[in-house]
């Protein structure tokens, strides 16, 4: 199997290949040299298991994540579907802002993001690293009517947001049960990531929260209360220096 280098992350090396004809991404976690070998192996195994479990639990709750093709504990690798064509939400927002395409696409996107995180939290999945790079935008799944039309990532930018779907990736820091506090922190991480990566997106985060509340009706109030507390702590910390 021919593998080509794709990306180097903080925790893992990403490579591209084809897996029995399907576009595939291999995520291989590497050893942490500063950790004792046996401990490192057992922590890595646990991480991979959590990651895979979260991806499957997302799917069964209607949140799109890449299909898993193989888990290889010998090399600490997950082989998964390479979602293509796709662009990151980060690229999408940057493009909308650069072309001054107005707020409509951003608010429609926020609606989808809030929906996904709301559903995830309702199913007790904490993503742990919600950034706009860890969400992909791909063609919406249409069942049997799936069109076979080939398009490029650039074409995605021309599509109506209603025809696109957010795919959640990188569950490397996930946790599979969480207190309202953990969920509040999950949202806070996203807020910080969004505002620091994309200027003038406060209203986008507000729209995400609105949609989140709709989609996690039982838990949202308490989570948002925690979010406010975490925000306050965050602010104090920056004031102190």
């Amino acid at each position, binding site marked *: 199997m021919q593998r080509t280098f794709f990306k180097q992350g903080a925790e893992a090396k990403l490579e591209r290949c084809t897996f029995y004809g*399907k576009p595939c991404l291999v995520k291989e976690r590497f050893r942490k040299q500063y950790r004792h070998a046996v401990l490192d192996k057992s922590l890595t195994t646990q991480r991979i298991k959590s990651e895979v*479990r979260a991806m499957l639990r997302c799917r069964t709750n209607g949140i799109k994540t890449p299909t898993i093709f*193989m888990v290889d504990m*010998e090399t600490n690798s997950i082989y998964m579907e390479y979602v293509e064509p796709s662009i990151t939400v980060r690229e999408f927002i940057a493009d909308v802002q650069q072309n001054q395409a107005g707020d409509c696409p951003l608010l429609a996107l926020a609606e989808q993001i809030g929906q996904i995180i709301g559903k995830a939290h309702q199913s007790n999945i904490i993503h742990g690293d919600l950034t706009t790079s860890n969400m992909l935008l791909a063609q919406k*799944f249409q069942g049997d009517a799936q069109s076979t039309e080939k398009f490029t990532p650039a074409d995605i930018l021309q599509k109506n947001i209603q025809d696109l779907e957010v795919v959640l990736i990188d569950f490397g820091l996930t946790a599979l049960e969480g207190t309202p506090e953990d969920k509040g922190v999950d949202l806070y991480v996203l807020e910080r990531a969004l505002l620091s990566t994309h200027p003038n997106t406060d209203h986008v985060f507000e729209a995400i929260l609105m949609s989140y509340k709709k989609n996690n009706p039982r838990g949202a109030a308490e989570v948002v209360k925690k979010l406010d507390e975490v925000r306050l702590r965050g602010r104090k910390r920056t004031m102190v220096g």
Partner: protein
Amino acid sequence: MAEKKFHHALYPDTTIILALFRDVENAKEVRQAVMSGKFDASLLKASMIVDEFLVTVAANKAVHSQRCGKMITKTVHSEILYNLSAGRKITEAFKKIGISDTDTSVLVAIAGEEEKVLQSLQALKSVIKGRQVSLDELSSLADLSAVRKEYKLTDVELSSCSPVGAIASRIAAKDIITV
């Protein structure tokens, strides 16, 4: 040559062959031939397999488990069958995914060293009384409601992904997810 041949993703010296037969008249005899060791193969109920990709995922995993000494079952061919089933009971796996004496559509998977695999395929072809067809016919043979029941696929899950994606993920993660 309606069968398909793949090299294992990690072990290129291992070959995986898939072949589909319809109008099979002697499923019982074929099954007995495998059980008596005439040739090695997984005999799969075609109606339970929505896509050939799922068999490659299961066979890929079975061969890898074999190489790592981590098989749950005794042979790579029963391991393929086990991997394809949703549960953890081997006898249940054979009942649900393996062919029964009355089945007329049989999907065959054979994995191993190329020469041996081809020999097994020849031996199978000499025993089976049926018509070999293209693997493309698989989707038309699927019993979707039985498949949905076996893998507990819900409308919610199928709203965002195909049965193939849902089932492939379950096979790949079988030893990790707790059901």
